[in-house]
């Protein structure tokens, strides 16, 4: 614990690390974080082994393509249209789920009666495998985008809801007492203390949900669609274009990684303070 005279400009150690970095040194960076070299290294190694096995055992391309075949398929087939289509479905579903999750989660956390009333229904819905309901959505909303958006929203809704509720519930009692000592209204307590304090958990939920939304969109496309990456996979599968399927998987995985990085970035921006919650003093 530092011992600071009033009026002194002495900074605690936490701020010392904020000094601007002077120059970028590749060797020093790699020494400090060897994984930056190991991650691509492992990738190259695995690809080489895979390629060798396929050629050595002469595996037919429609059973298992070599990495070189997949790379070729990636270059030759245009994924952009389908990828944007699927991404559009997933993101619309995700946003829908996020809005519903925040509103319903907020109501449940704030009003015990809302929870008591809705709880059995929520349990019933949550324990039903959402994928099993998906064919109904296709029947009701057709082969277009709407059915996929709804399936994606249904699947990504619960991780958000659960995290919103537990985040809003886990408010530090000391903060509530502070607000009560000021005679803060329920709304003031919600906006000033509960909601910002719940953000770390809400972001954890959003992080899961955004990946789930892709899953939902793909499942919907499997069941009936005219476009999208899920549709492409089904068609390639029928045509025994296994290299194409792998290339599509690669694109899907790249989309997933990008979404995850985007969420992590937003999380770091919004929760710059969250590290401090580990300190016992705050």
């Amino acid at each position, binding site marked *: 614990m530092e011992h600071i005279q009033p009026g002194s400009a002495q900074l605690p150690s936490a701020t010392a690390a904020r000094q601007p970095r002077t120059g970028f040194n590749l060797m020093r960076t790699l020494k400090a974080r060897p994984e930056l070299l190991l991650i691509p290294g492992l990738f190259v190694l695995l690809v080489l082994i895979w390629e060798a096995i396929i050629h050595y055992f002469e595996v037919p391309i429609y059973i298992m393509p070599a990495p070189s075949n997949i790379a070729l398929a990636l270059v030759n087939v245009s994924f952009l249209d389908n990828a944007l289509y699927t991404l559009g479905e997933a993101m619309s579903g995700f946003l829908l789920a996020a809005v519903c999750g925040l509103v319903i989660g907020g109501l449940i956390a704030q009003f015990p009666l809302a929870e008591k009333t809705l709880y059995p229904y929520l349990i019933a819905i949550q324990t039903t495998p959402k994928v099993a309901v998906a064919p109904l959505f296709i029947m009701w909303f057709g082969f277009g985008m709407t059915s996929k958006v709804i399936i994606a929203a249904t699947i990504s809704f619960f991780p958000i809801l659960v995290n919103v509720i537990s985040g809003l519930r886990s408010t530090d009692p000391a903060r509530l007492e502070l607000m009560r000592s*000021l005679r803060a209204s329920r709304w003031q307590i919600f906006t000033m203390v509960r909601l910002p304090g719940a953000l770390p958990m809400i972001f954890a939920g959003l992080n899961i949900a955004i990946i789930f939304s892709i899953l939902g969109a793909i499942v919907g496309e499997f069941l009936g669609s005219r476009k999208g990456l899920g549709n492409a996979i089904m068609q390639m599968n029928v045509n025994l274009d296994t290299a194409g399927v792998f290339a599509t998987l690669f694109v899907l995985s790249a989309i997933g990684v990008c979404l995850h990085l985007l969420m992590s970035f937003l999380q770091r921006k919004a929760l710059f*303070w969250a590290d401090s919650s580990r300190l016992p003093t*705050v």
Partner: protein
Amino acid sequence: MPATTSPNLSQTQSPIQGAQIGAAIVVEALEKTYATQDGGQVQALGPLSVTVPQGGFMTIVGPSGCGKSTLLKLLSGLIPRTAGSIKVNGEEVHEPHRDIGMVFQTPVLLPWKTAIDNVLLPARVLGLPMERSRARAQELLDMVGLREFRGRYPHELSGGMQQRVAIARSLIHDPSILMMDEPFGALDAMTREVMNVELLRIWRQAGKTIIFVTHSIPEAIFLGTQVMVLSNRPGRIADLVNVDLPAERSLDIMSTDAFGVFSKRIRSQFNTQGLI
């Protein structure tokens, strides 16, 4: 300690400058009982009667679990009493009173707000004019020695600095009474002593009535104009000690004979109850 300049922090008269005008808090036959699981009743506190004069500094000391914190929460209106009466500035207390500022055992700062925004929290909740409050928040941060730290976030401040922010926050709406629940209990001994000296300076400067709960006998004597010694549960007043040491105190006073006499008197109370 360098004297900081903010003379108009309070309308309340300083106890050094003038005579004590009246009672800030009047407690009569206060009792608190809790219902137990099996339907019984447990007496946690009282009956207890006491009067705190305006501008007074009353410290409350007692064994752990005697109901010190409960007493403070009752006085501040955070929890309902079972019997008796509490009057703050002549008004019966039923809910948290606007004229009371609270400082808790931990700083309870909002980690997503800067120091000055944390100080401004009560102003926002109470809907005070922001421009004037902002100027006042800056004055208060000056007073607690954090002039340069207004833009810092809690995790960038040491424990002592965080508790100073909490003290500034408790004063932003200019309450005449400050209630502090072991505010320095989590700090190391050195920081704690500095904070004690600082608090006395702030008390003299701002002229507030302070109720201060602690489990440290030296801290209780060093800070208080009056020390309330609570008994074991149910907490009752075992002794009420008027500390007639000079209002301007330095840490050296703790090694004087007079200080030792007070210390001995309070300690003997603990002894007779078999607490030490």
